[in-house]
């Protein structure tokens, strides 16, 4: 059953993985429990900051799950913490979307509705999300590997946008 734990984010596994594995070793795997773990993993993927906020106490832990830079904001209304990295990602996502959208509008005025301009419009909409997804899913891969993956996906997105505009 421990294979289901691989669906949890790394920081979460570092913090709670051993305890959860120990618990699961004593539970019988039922479809209900499998579904519960799947939804738990989805929740953990959506809220990785929960595991990152609590100090890992496992022996031999790398300490990578602590709040980045020891810096966090506390939101009084929801008791939710935003790390410096969260803020940087959010600003980069919002900023790049705005810049690309403005570039698209400017090109559309200057050049007109050429297929490649429409393809750029698609990149303006989905490119930053794509970049963020690559960043999120890349794990420990090198910067070059991330850049390669992002370029391939971006090229695919441009092709789809170009083909859609030509239809």
């Amino acid at each position, binding site marked *: 059953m421990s294979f289901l734990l691989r669906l949890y984010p790394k920081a979460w596994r570092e913090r709670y993985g051993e*305890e959860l594995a120990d*618990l699961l070793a004593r539970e019988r795997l039922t479809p209900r429990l499998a579904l519960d773990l799947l939804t738990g993993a989805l929740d953990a993927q959506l809220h990785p900051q929960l595991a990152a906020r609590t100090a890992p106490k496992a022996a031999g832990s790398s300490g990578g799950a602590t709040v980045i830079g020891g810096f966090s904001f506390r939101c009084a209304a929801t008791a939710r913490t935003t790390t410096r990295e969260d803020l940087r990602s959010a600003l980069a996502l919002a900023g790049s979307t705005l810049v690309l959208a403005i570039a698209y509008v400017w090109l559309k005025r200057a050049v007109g509705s050429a297929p490649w301009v429409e393809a750029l419009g698609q990149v303006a909409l989905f490119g930053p999300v794509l970049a963020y997804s690559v960043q999120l899913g890349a794990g420990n891969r090198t910067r070059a590997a991330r850049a390669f993956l992002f370029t391939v996906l971006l090229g695919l997105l441009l092709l789809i946008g170009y083909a859609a505009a030509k239809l």
Partner: protein
Amino acid sequence: MRPRDQEDTATDFGRFSEPALLVLVSLAGEPKHGYAMIEDIAAMTGARLGAGTLYGAIARLEAGGLIELLPGAERRRPYRLTAAGARHLKVRLAGLAKVTRIGQTRLAGA
């Protein structure tokens, strides 16, 4: 700084609200590790919490400072209620007791 009562009622655990309350009640007796909590909650309510739900609630309670790991514990790690957790639990139980009283009074008059 917010008053304690506001602090205690402001913590919102969304769909983990009920499991989080059950974990707090379970830990109010004595420190427990995950499996012991599941067993205790099953004895209290007749329902067995799933491991994913349990650790979703534990992570939120720990992040909110309402429970903490006992120092020095190994693989089977026990958690205990913090002072803030005990205050939070008192507020939640008082709220539930009020609702129960009102419900019973209304049912008696129906």
